[in-house]
């Protein structure tokens, strides 16, 4: 009840005391109008992408109407086959899955030790991880990272990109520490008493209990890897066949007939948005809970 009043402020405060009924209505109308306009503006680019992906090249070129005259589903086939999106999608999937799995494993192991045990240098380690999230020197790190991958002979594969993505695991690390805290220590101890070793306890007892945490953290790691642009851009510059969706799509702008292929670009954009969108619809709650949780914790 109180909250209901609280929300009226944007539109109808002040009036509500004099003419409670009409003030309330006007306030609600203004509020809903605001909410709807915001929602439309939020969806507008996505709807334009969708509608553009179904237009012909000529329709796209001249601007014109909001909706395609006749939906061209063939655009998707063309983007998939000719514009090489099949290849890009596999590359993106490979990078994202491997980076997610790697990030989760590396961060979970570290977080487990940090949460459960004391060891010399622990605070140094945690401080370093925390500062990795805050120091930002921009693209300059790409060069030494690239040189390192050349030395390891990993620059001709996507493993270089994957390793670099995994190396940025500090936010996952802190997220997982929160989840570890929720698992009672008695469980480890009980398992140890039963003769289970440290490693076995971690993989057999603790990790399964961490599944929800891993799911949520994985979702974020996956989103990050899937959407990453500059890192794969630089690493695949000499190997166009390794390009991910984001890079391939952006490079389409320079294709030999890019100006006539905006419709394919839009179809490609839809293809690259779709997997994340599906994940979002399935796991909407966790996205929201964790984003929200990051300020509470």
């Amino acid at each position: 009840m109180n909250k209901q009043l609280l929300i009226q402020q944007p539109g109808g405060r002040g009036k509500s005391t004099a003419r409670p009924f009409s003030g309330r209505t006007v306030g609600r109308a203004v509020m809903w109008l605001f909410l709807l306009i915001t929602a439309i503006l939020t969806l507008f680019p996505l709807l334009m992408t969708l509608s553009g992906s179904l237009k012909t090249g000529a329709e796209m070129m001249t601007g014109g109407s909001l909706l395609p005259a006749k939906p061209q589903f063939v655009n998707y086939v063309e983007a998939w086959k000719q514009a090489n999106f099949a290849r890009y999608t596999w590359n993106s999937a490979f990078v994202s899955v491997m980076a997610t799995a790697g990030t989760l494993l590396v961060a979970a192991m570290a977080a487990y030790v940090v949460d459960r045990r004391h060891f010399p240098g622990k605070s140094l380690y945690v401080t370093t991880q925390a500062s990795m999230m805050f120091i930002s020197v921009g693209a300059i790190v790409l060069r030494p990272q690239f040189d390192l991958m050349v030395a390891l002979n990993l620059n001709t594969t996507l493993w270089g990109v994957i390793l670099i993505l995994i190396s940025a695991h500090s936010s996952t690390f802190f997220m997982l520490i929160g989840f570890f805290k929720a698992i009672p220590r008695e469980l480890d101890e009980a398992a140890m008493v039963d003769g289970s070793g440290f490693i076995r306890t971690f993989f057999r007892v603790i990790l399964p209990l961490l599944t929800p945490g891993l799911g949520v953290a994985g979702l974020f790691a996956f989103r990050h890897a899937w959407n990453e642009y500059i890192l794969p851009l630089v690493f695949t510059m000499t190997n166009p066949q390794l390009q991910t969706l984001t890079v391939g799509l952006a490079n389409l702008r320079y294709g030999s007939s890019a100006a006539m292929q905006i419709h394919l670009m839009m179809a490609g954009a839809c293809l690259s948005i779709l997997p994340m969108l599906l994940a979002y619809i399935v796991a909407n709650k966790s996205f929201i809970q964790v984003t929200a949780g990051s300020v509470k914790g």
Partner: protein
Amino acid sequence: MHFKWKRLGENALFLSPSIILTAALGIYPLLWMLRYMFYDYAGYGDPLFVGLDNFRLLMRDGLFWESVGNTFIYAGGKLLLTLPLSLLLAVILNSKLRGGNLLRGIYFMPTIISTAVISVVFYNIFNSYNGMVNTVLMKLHLISQPIDWLGPKYAMLTVIIVAVWGAVGNYMLLFLAGLQSIPQDLYESAAIDGANAARRFWSITLPMLAPVAQMVIMLAIIASLKGYESIMLITEGGPIGKTEVMYLYLYKLLFPVSTGSPVEQQLGYGSAVGFATAVIVGAITGLYFLLSRKMNKLY
């Protein structure tokens, strides 16, 4: 004794992947930068030690300082639009209104989409000659002539709009989390005391939200200073450098793109610029941190 060594071994085993990766790909690049910022190194041949020359060049590099100014405009514009808008949405959605979950889902959606992909889309819909934004505005008779969204006058506004579009949902959610942690009985007792809605907002909601808001704003400042991916794809810093932000300028020093000023790869000078940008962002964050703590004490 054996037991202790075993524990240490286990610790090392579990921590080493993280430590090795962080050291090699997180810390080593920083050290690399700290070394090469004293060198003249264009990416080929032998690096030449030049002492502080790169920093002298930095001091008189008008393009860099222009990009710093643009970064402030960009970040400031983004924050001024994003924070109030997301707070407002959060306050509204905090009441259990019908369809609230759906709306929240919609507003949050942009945060899951790749900045690169949506920037390519935005470039096409903001085009002045065939972009959908102008088409729609003209159909609604809000404008009579196409607006040159990517021209020198509006390009900055356009990239800010794109940034706001991508950020509002995220901060809305963070504010929402803060709002939901405010105990309900505070409002109830205030209502009994006869405080009206406005009063309750100013004297309960805002102060109670302050700790969360402080952190949210901090995150927002860092994120808005760091962002350059979407600018790179929409305007490449142009026209005439109007949207050149410092991290984009840095990128161009390392990987010269076809457009814009730096025309040759300069790793040594780039390292100096990288260091300077990190210091600038660090200083602003630190300053904000100090100021917000002072404000807290005043309360």
